[in-house]
């Protein structure tokens, strides 16, 4: 399918938005503004955006511990996310979830899961729900190459294929499960090969090429909406940063500086920029303006989050259960 210029620009804008968000997160984490852990997706934006752009707002998406980009692409509020990362009461989860558990069902974000692979059965359940309710919604589950070895992922693929559920399994293969490379954790070269075991289509795409990812994801979504069942999409990509911020990864323990440098040259944003310029879809000036707008939006989000209060201590006891009074 040919992509319109407008769509390409939107994708570009979204990738820059995610990159800028993550660059800010990196710095704010260093400055001590975020408690706990944070995992950024710099270098992996094309897979995130290509996959999410194939979805509608009312479709479902299960995100991962490295899920900031996934949530932004699904439409979560930047202000709400930034406040959540700081543990503030105006966060999308009122400060109870944090970086690894961003969820907002109103935009179809079913929740970030820090248990690797757990989103696959949950997304399959959302798909089962859509099918039972007779809607044409689909559900997308992100997981990494490491998580692809979790039993829950295989169980989910089996039921999704068996019941022809509208699920898109998206493996963001960044080639490492924390420090263990794919060669050390998986005997096969392509995770997508595993689709064959469940009699569903499996595609390997260049995870740094947003157009390629989008086109494959769109095909998968179309198939899902038509009631033909799930697809496994593997996006080959690379994370530029360590597993988490503060991970002394940069060429030290488990991968080389040369390897990181090679992948930085394959930057998904630079790749799209080149395409936009070459095809006269956008000028450098236009792209600079997009960047400036995003910088402002993110500065606003940071300012909003900084000003927001921490939750009151008694809020610890709220939301453990849904109270009957709330329902009525």
């Amino acid at each position, binding site marked *: 399918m040919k992509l319109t210029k407008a769509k390409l620009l939107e994708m570009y804008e979204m990738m820059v938005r995610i990159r800028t968000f993550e660059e800010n997160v990196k710095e704010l984490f260093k400055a001590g503004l975020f408690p706990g852990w944070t995992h950024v997706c710099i270098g992996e934006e094309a897979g995130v955006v290509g996959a999410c752009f194939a979805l509608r707002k009312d479709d479902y998406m299960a995100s991962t511990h490295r899920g900031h980009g996934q949530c932004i692409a699904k439409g979560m509020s930047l202000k709400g996310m930034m406040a959540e990362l700081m543990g503030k009461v105006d966060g999308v989860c009122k400060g109870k979830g944090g970086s690894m558990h961003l969820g907002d069902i109103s935009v179809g974000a079913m929740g970030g899961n820090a248990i690797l692979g757990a989103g696959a059965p949950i997304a399959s359940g959302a798909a089962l729900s859509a099918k039972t309710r007779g809607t044409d919604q689909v559900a997308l589950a992100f997981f990494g190459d490491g998580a692809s070895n979790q039993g829950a992922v295989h169980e989910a693929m089996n039921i999704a294929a068996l019941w022809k559920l509208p699920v898109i399994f998206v493996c963001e293969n960044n080639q490492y499960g924390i420090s263990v490379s794919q060669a050390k954790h998986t005997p096969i070269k392509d995770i997508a090969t595993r689709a064959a075991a469940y009699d569903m289509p499996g595609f390997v795409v260049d995870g740094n090429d947003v157009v390629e990812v989008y086109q494959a994801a769109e095909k998968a979504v179309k198939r899902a909406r038509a009631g033909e069942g799930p697809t496994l999409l593997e996006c080959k990509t690379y994370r530029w940063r360590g597993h988490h911020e503060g991970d002394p990864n940069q060429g030290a323990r488990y991968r080389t500086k040369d390897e990181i440098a090679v992948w930085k040259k394959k930057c998904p944003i630079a790749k799209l920029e080149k395409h936009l310029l070459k095809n006269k879809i956008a000028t450098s000036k236009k792209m600079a303006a997009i960047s400036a707008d995003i910088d402002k939006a993110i500065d606003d989000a940071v300012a909003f989050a900084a000003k927001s209060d921490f939750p009151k201590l008694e809020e610890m006891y709220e939301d453990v259960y*849904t109270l009957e009074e709330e329902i009525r």
Partner: protein
Amino acid sequence: MREITYCDALNEALRQCMTEDERVVVLGEDIGTYGGIFQVTKGLQEEFGPDRVVDTPISEAAFIGASVGAALTGMRPVAEIMFIDFTTVCMDMIINQMAKMHYMFGGKGRVPMVLRTNIGAGRGTAAQHSQSFHSLYMHTPGLYVATPSTPYDAKGLLIEAINNDNPVVFVEHKRLYTTNGPVPEESYRIPFGQADVKREGTDITIVATHALVISAMEAAEEAEKEGIAVEVVDPRTLVPLDKETILNSVKKTGRLLVADEDTRTCGVAAEISAIVAEEAIYYLKAPILRNTSPDTPVPFSPPLEQAYMFGKEKILESIKSLMAYA
């Protein structure tokens, strides 16, 4: 009132909920034409079709996870796990997902699902089909835990569980499935957190769960012959726990025996004992006693399994030992 079995009461609850609310779907292993290992779902697939009564592969993580996802998106799934022992293979889905979603996402998103399962030894099925570790779910914030002991409670609590917007672990008991009792034909709900005083008495309180409620009632009858008035309190739900009824009973009788089939350490009985020790110790005339399973796996050999289990006799013995304190 007509009498039906605990199993049929559960079946009727499911049928009525499925008739009233099309969001209710049932998932599990062998629950379709087979009717479930204990026949709780018999006839449901025939009546509601395979899309609402779903035979699943042997993939507990997949179908409990899918129930969480379906619940978050507008359904009311009721999943059956054949034995509580098998919940261990999907512990992540229960403890990290089903229980935590609502809290982790700041109250956005609800997980109105029921996980039905069962406990109980006595069928010679050894250490992996006979366990009673329902305390584990009582221990997990975010879950409600129902433990029906009679057909009446089974139906009313299950209908409440299905209509409740919180995730519920609904713990049935193997030996109770064939017991009979009066059950209204119409649909009714028993609110969670309301203990039932199954028998009133002034000398000793027995807080008993599941099949031990029956044993406690039998022991109470025997004790009555010796002039001991036993009060039997059945919490019916462990979460929320009706502390008030338990404490009021203990304040009245001054003696407490807790009878629960889980193993001893960190079990239901330990928790209830601790609550009473903290909040009503000055009302006690005697130490608190616990009747529980021993801290061992369930053994296979029949004499060993019989020794592992307990009922009326042990409870009666405990009643007498508590009555020795003036």
